[in-house]
C-alpha cells in the first residue's frame, strides 16, 4: 500500500496525526525520551512491536486513500493481511523456507486474503469471502493454496481445510529483496497480478474481477 503517499497527505487532511520526519528502522522501539516523563519500555507481549511487522495490501492499490477522498464509495476488490519477515543475510528459498513444505507467506499469523467480489485467480473462479493463503514453494514453481482455517497462526496448516490450488512458475530477480513483500501489479481496473517477492525470487498470481 502507498503509505508514503499517505504519510505525506494525511497530516494535511487529518488534523493532528503527523508522521515523524525521521524514518526509524522499521519496527524499532523509539529510544528518544521525554525530558520530564519516563518512557516505559515495552513490557509484555501486548506492547512489543513485532519483528516482522504486519502490513496490508489492497486492490485497487490506494483504496483507503481513494475512499477517504471520495473517489470511490464501493468496497475494494481484494485485501490481504500479512506480516513481513526480513532476509537478514540468510538464504531464504531452499534454506529458511524449505522446498515442498507449506509456508505461510509471511510470518506470525497465516496470511489472510479477502475477495469482496467474485474473482478469477490463475484461471479459476473464487467466491467472495475470506480465506487463508499459503504456498508450497519449489525451485521453479510455487503452488498457492486457499484454505478456510481462518484466524490461525501460520506455523501449521490444516490441510483438511484446503479449498483450491494454483500453480505458477517463479522468476529470479537481479536484486535480493530484504523484506518479504506482497504487492499488486495493476493490469487494468479489474485485473492485477499479485506479486510475492523475497530474496531473489518473485512469484506472480494473476487475479481478475
Amino acid at each position, binding site marked *: *500500500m*502507498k*503509505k*508514503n503517499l*499517505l*504519510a505525506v497527505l*494525511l497530516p494535511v*487532511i*487529518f*488534523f*493532528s*496525526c503527523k*508522521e*515523524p520526519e*525521521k*524514518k*526509524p528502522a*522499521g*519496527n524499532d*522501539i*523509539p529510544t*528518544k*525520551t*521525554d525530558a520530564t516523563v519516563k*518512557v516505559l519500555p515495552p513490557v509484555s*507481549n*501486548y506492547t512489543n*512491536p*513485532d519483528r516482522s*511487522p*504486519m*502490513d*496490508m*495490501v*489492497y486492490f485497487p492499490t490506494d*483504496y*483507503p*486513500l481513494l*475512499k*477517504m477522498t471520495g473517489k470511490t464509495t464501493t*468496497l*475494494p476488490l481484494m*485485501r490481504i*493481511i500479512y506480516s*513481513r519477515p526480513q532476509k537478514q543475510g540468510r538464504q531464504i528459498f531452499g534454506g529458511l523456507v524449505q522446498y515442498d513444505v507449506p509456508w505461510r507467506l509471511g510470518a506470525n*499469523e*497465516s496470511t489472510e486474503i479477502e475477495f*469482496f467480489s467474485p474473482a478469477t485467480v490463475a484461471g479459476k473462479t473464487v467466491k467472495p469471502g475470506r480465506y487463508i493463503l499459503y504456498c508450497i514453494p519449489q525451485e521453479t514453481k510455487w503452488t498457492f493454496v486457499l484454505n478456510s482455517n481462518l*484466524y*490461525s*497462526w501460520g*506455523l*501449521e496448516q490444516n490441510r483438511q481445510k484446503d479449498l483450491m490450488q494454483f500453480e505458477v512458475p517463479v522468476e529470479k*530477480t537481479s*536484486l535480493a*529483496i530484504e*523484506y518479504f*513483500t506482497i*504487492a499488486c501489479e495493476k493490469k487494468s481496473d479489474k485485473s492485477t497480478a499479485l506479486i510475492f*517477492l523475497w530474496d531473489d525470487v518473485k512469484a506472480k498470481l494473476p487475479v481478475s474481477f
Partner: protein
Amino acid sequence: MRKTSLLVCLLVSFLFSFSQPSKLPEVDKSPMDVSYYPNNYPILKIQNKATEPLVARILYSRPQKQGRKIFGELVEYGNVWRLGANEATEIEFYKDVKIGGKKVPKGRYTLYAIVSVESMSMLFEKSTTGISLIIAWEQVKVTLPITL
C-alpha cells in the same frame, strides 16, 4: 569522449532506475498490528487450546511517542482520533457484544476515539475497510473513563 561516456553512464543509470522495483511498498513507520479476544487466539487455535470461538479482532497501526507529548497536543482533546496511524482502526465482532452497557451487533466497524482529559469516547462506525473521514454518523458511542 569523456562527455560521451558520461552521457552513456547517465542514460544507463536513468534507464536502470526505471527497471528497478522502486515502487515496492516500504516498511511502515507505524507498523500495523492485530489484537484478538481471546488473547493470542491464533496460537491457541493451532494448539487446540481455544476454549471459545473468536469474539473480536482489531487491526490498527502503531505510531511511536518519540519524545513528543501525545494527548492534548499531537492528539488534540475534543477531536476525533483514528486510534493509531495510517488506515482507520478496524474492529470486528464475530458475535453480538455489549460495550459499556450498549449493544453492538456483530460485524465490522471502524473504531475512532474522541479523547478528553478524563475520558475517551469510542465511536463505532459501521464500515468495511479503509480510511473514512469522520462525519459524525457513528452508530454506537461509548464513553469510557480513563483510569491509570
